């Protein structure tokens, strides 16, 4: 979610045609920002609430623990009253975390435990943030084969929800787990890998925190490496027509489709070559610039949308590519400056282009107020029971709305399109599915349910959202 546009040229182009954002005061298909930034008001000396990154989830837990060791985590689980949930960086948009009873923060469960140079494996504590994972692994000559496009989440949260990057040869974060240690609802310490407690291993690598609280994770890495990323503006249809070749030609490939425009931004990333140098600048504010331009012209009767596309063509079409090169853990993630809400579904890889086209057509046909680029990525199949990529290569399509805008009018229209393509929702992002719709999407759904009930017979990890997901309402 970090397309690079030539922002200054972009604004200059818009201004030259006299269509500054001031025109957006008129009504039309513009993006109104009325949602408060925070879901609640905090006053000093009150108990500190918990609020997620996006500001759409919050709770006021009665009990809080911050264990720094496995023993402390066991002790916390043994003494925790009521519904227990764990939290890392709080980057999920869905209601995985909220509980009014006990919240266990994993901030202090961080760091490198050990590493195996021969097998290229490393064990890290579960609360280690992804932005620390890269440097920690680099310190022992290792690197994750792939990473998400932002590095704010905690390792355990990334595993719990199958967070992913892009690349047809690369699975989600869960697929790099070669073993983990989990503390069950009763305080029992369980370890698992592909050969030991293998059923737990298949379930715990994407468990939305329903099986226990993960204490440490062993990652299968590779020797540290350098990447070069190149972002450029292209015509979306030309990219989609050539998508198989693009994905084959590059180690990682993704694109950002711009609603109401024929353009997209492609991001191709490959192993760095001698002489690669960075050029141009990542512009994390680009999505706000896009919004201003959209608000400035989209209200115009009959010509608003075509003018918007024309302005984008003028401002972006001849932009030189932005190149970033360096260690993999510095190139793959991007900075976030804009708060947003996100819905993402993964459809079968071969359905990706058709699904994206249908979404873009629906936005245009129904004049949905959405200018935020739609992210389009590929992820390799895996065998984790509740992974969105279980048993099939996936195309993940992410729809974002600005954080100060009600996302529902847009998401309500787009979500059913994903259902037509057998889409599986990202566990950490916004969706409306419950157990009834989720069960048919996952061949091992009942296996997971049986294991969950065995490990947590009293439903201690079942907050309202998980009860809905697993049909315990």
């Amino acid at each position, binding site marked *: 979610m970090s397309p690079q546009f030539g922002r200054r040229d972009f604004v200059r182009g818009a201004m030259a045609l006299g269509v500054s954002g001031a025109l957006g005061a008129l009504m039309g298909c513009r993006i109104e920002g009325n949602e408060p930034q925070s879901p609640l008001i905090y006053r000093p000396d009150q108990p500190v609430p918990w609020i997620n990154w996006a500001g759409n989830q919050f709770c006021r837990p009665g009990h809080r623990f911050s264990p720094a060791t496995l023993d402390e985590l066991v002790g916390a689980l043994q003494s925790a009253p009521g519904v227990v949930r764990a939290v890392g960086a709080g980057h999920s948009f869905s209601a995985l975390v909220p509980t009014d009873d006990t919240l266990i923060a994993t901030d202090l469960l961080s760091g*490198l435990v050990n590493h195996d140079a021969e097998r290229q494996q490393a064990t890290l504590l579960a609360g280690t943030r992804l932005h620390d994972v890269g440097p920690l692994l680099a310190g022992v000559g290792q690197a994750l084969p792939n990473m998400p496009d932002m590095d704010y989440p905690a390792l355990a949260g990334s595993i719990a929800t199958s967070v992913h990057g892009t690349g047809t040869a690369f699975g989600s974060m869960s697929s790099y787990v070669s073993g983990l240690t989990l503390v069950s609802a009763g305080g029992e310490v369980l370890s698992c890998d592909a050969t030991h407690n293998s059923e737990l291993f298949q379930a715990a690598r994407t468990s939305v925190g329903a099986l226990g609280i993960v204490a440490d994770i062993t990652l299968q890495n590779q020797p540290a490496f350098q990447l070069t990323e190149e972002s450029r503006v292209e015509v979306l249809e030309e990219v989609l027509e050539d998508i198989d070749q693009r994905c084959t030609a590059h180690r990682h490939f993704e694109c950002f489709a711009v609603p109401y425009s024929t353009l997209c931004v492609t991001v191709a990333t490959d192993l760095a070559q001698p002489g690669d140098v960075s050029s141009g600048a990542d512009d994390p504010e680009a999505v706000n610039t896009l919004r201003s331009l959209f608000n400035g012209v989209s209200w115009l009767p009959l010509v608003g949308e075509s003018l918007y596309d024309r302005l984008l063509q003028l401002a972006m079409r001849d932009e030189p590519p932005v190149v970033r090169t360096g260690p993999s853990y510095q190139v793959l993630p991007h900075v976030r400056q804009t*708060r947003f809400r996100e819905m993402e579904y993964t459809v079968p890889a071969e359905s990706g282009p058709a699904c994206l086209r249908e979404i873009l057509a629906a936005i245009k046909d129904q004049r949905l107020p959405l200018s935020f680029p739609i992210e389009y990525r590929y992820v390799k199949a895996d065998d984790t029971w509740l992974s969105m990529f279980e048993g099939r290569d996936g195309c993940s399509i992410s729809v974002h709305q600005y954080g100060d805008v009600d996302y529902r009018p847009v998401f309500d229209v787009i979500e059913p399109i994903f259902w037509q393509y057998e889409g599986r929702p990202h566990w950490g992002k916004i969706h409306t599915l419950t157990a009834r719709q989720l069960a048919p999407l996952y061949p091992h759904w009942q296996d997971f349910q049986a294991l969950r009930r065995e490990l947590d017979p009293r439903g201690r990890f079942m907050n309202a959202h998980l009860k809905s997901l697993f049909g315990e309402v």
Partner: protein
Amino acid sequence: MHRMNQRTTPASSDSTFHSILRSAVGRLRHKVRPVVGWWVLALTVLWPLSAAAQPPDARQMTLLRNNCAQCHINPATGAPQLGQAGDWQEALARGEDALLRSVVEGRGGMPPLGYCSACSQADFRVLIRVLTQQPSAPEGET
């Protein structure tokens, strides 16, 4: 991200202490295996050089490293930077309670809680003072 205010003074306004601290922290984050013990050592050695702020304990240093540092010791994010007094002028003018509220609720690019779900109000106050280089609270206050 985290544009609570724009940088208004050049890097030369950086205090020697915070330059050293920031440099050390930056090296630890990106070059050295960032183990908690290194942070504690760095602060133990460097903090006495500063008369500005109450030293955080080891737990609070871990919270700072895992959460605050990713933006406030990373100029690319646009966030006010540790030791850059000018970065914090606008925020400090609003008072510590207002700053605390901004941290908890989130403000601009600053996410709610600054990603720190383990932080208590007392933790937030100490970390705010560390980042903004403000004097410690009077005896008996958090």
